[in-house]
């Protein structure tokens, strides 16, 4: 719970200082992870699905949300190939599912991916196949973004933080 609420606090702070002002100024805001991360990660940690969604009801709904989907094996291979030391919380070590970081990562992130599959439809996330090369992925992303930016209605009303 504290994990979930601390992240929500940080998110609220960034939303109010870093996201809403540039939106009001008509700029494009690129967010590396958004509330969806909480919906998947916190639920995997045992937080109630509906509760966490309502917790984040103060968030601005993105005009476009992209989900880079990758199978768990590819994810593990990529991280290990770069000889990255898996982070304690990223590997879900706090849950005590396995004392082996790689095994724990596999179990934890596997569950996270299941939650992502659940929300793809719920929140209409645009899915990008992230097994392809960076160039291929970027082509898809630019195509999706271009369609959105060009069709965007720039006069729309920006909700304030009290739209909860």
């Amino acid at each position, binding site marked *: *719970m*504290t994990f979930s609420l601390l992240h929500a606090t940080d998110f609220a702070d960034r939303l109010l200082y870093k996201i809403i002002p540039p939106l009001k100024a008509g700029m494009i805001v690129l967010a590396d992870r958004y509330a969806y991360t909480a919906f998947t990660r916190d639920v995997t940690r045992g937080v*109630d699905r*509906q509760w966490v969604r*309502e917790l984040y009801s103060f968030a601005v*709904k993105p005009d476009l949300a992209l989900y880079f989907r990758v199978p768990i094996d590819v994810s593990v291979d990529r991280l290990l190939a770069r000889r990255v030391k898996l982070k304690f919380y990223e590997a879900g070590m706090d849950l005590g599912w396995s004392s082996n970081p790689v095994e724990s990562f596999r179990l934890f992130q596997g569950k996270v991916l299941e939650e992502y599959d659940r929300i793809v439809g719920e929140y209409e996330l645009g899915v990008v196949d992230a097994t392809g090369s960076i160039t291929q992925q970027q082509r898809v992303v630019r195509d999706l973004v271009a369609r959105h930016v060009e069709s965007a209605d720039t006069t729309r009303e920006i909700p304030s933080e009290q739209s909860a």
Partner: protein
Amino acid sequence: MSSQPESPHDHGLVEGANGGIQPGGYYGRGIPYLPINGYPGKLIAIEGTDGVGRSTQIQLLREWLEVKGYGVVETGWTRSPLMQPTIELAKSSNTLNKLTFVLLYATDFADRLEKEIIPALKAGFVVLTDRYIFTALARAGVRGVDRPWLRTLYGFAIAPHLVFYLKIDVETLIGRVLESRGMDFWESGMDLKHGDDIYDSFRAYQNKLLREYSSMADEFHFRVVDARRSVVHIQDELRRQVGAFLEP
């Protein structure tokens, strides 16, 4: 951002006459990984605005309960080791807004709930809590935060077995606060920018808080205690009611 609730009635706290909420159970959706049914401990909340005499009453109540043989655990607002330094730091800077304020308090509460309150209830202690979620609901409500959202947020809180609301009028309160430590920035609601005068701001802010608490009295089954009386008088009443509850 929220999607449709699974049914119209299964989110947040039940508003109005909440006959469905069991003392000792979760108000709302709870913490799925911490089932708390059937725990032997008792949760007693002492609520009331600043300077109403809560800590004195809790100290006396604790001594009395311990002499009677009960194990007592005390907890209080913003006392979690995880969050207290952060909350103090945030209050001392000017970066807090009402939303982050609410969420920091909720984090502190969640930490104490998981680490102090639930384990103590499991072990059969009487948990005395100096303020409870009603303080958060009142402060945020006064600041214009959406009330249904707040109730959903605190759906992971446990409904106390007893909630004592030490009720006072603003005149008496002003006298007491001035006699003791004086008015401070946050207790005077100076962040609400009612004006530069701390006295006027304190009065306006505490008045609003008192109205907010009163509006929750029925919803959360407050036992209202007249806090204008002497310490001994109030303590007698608390002991009588706690005694009747613990040893019927």
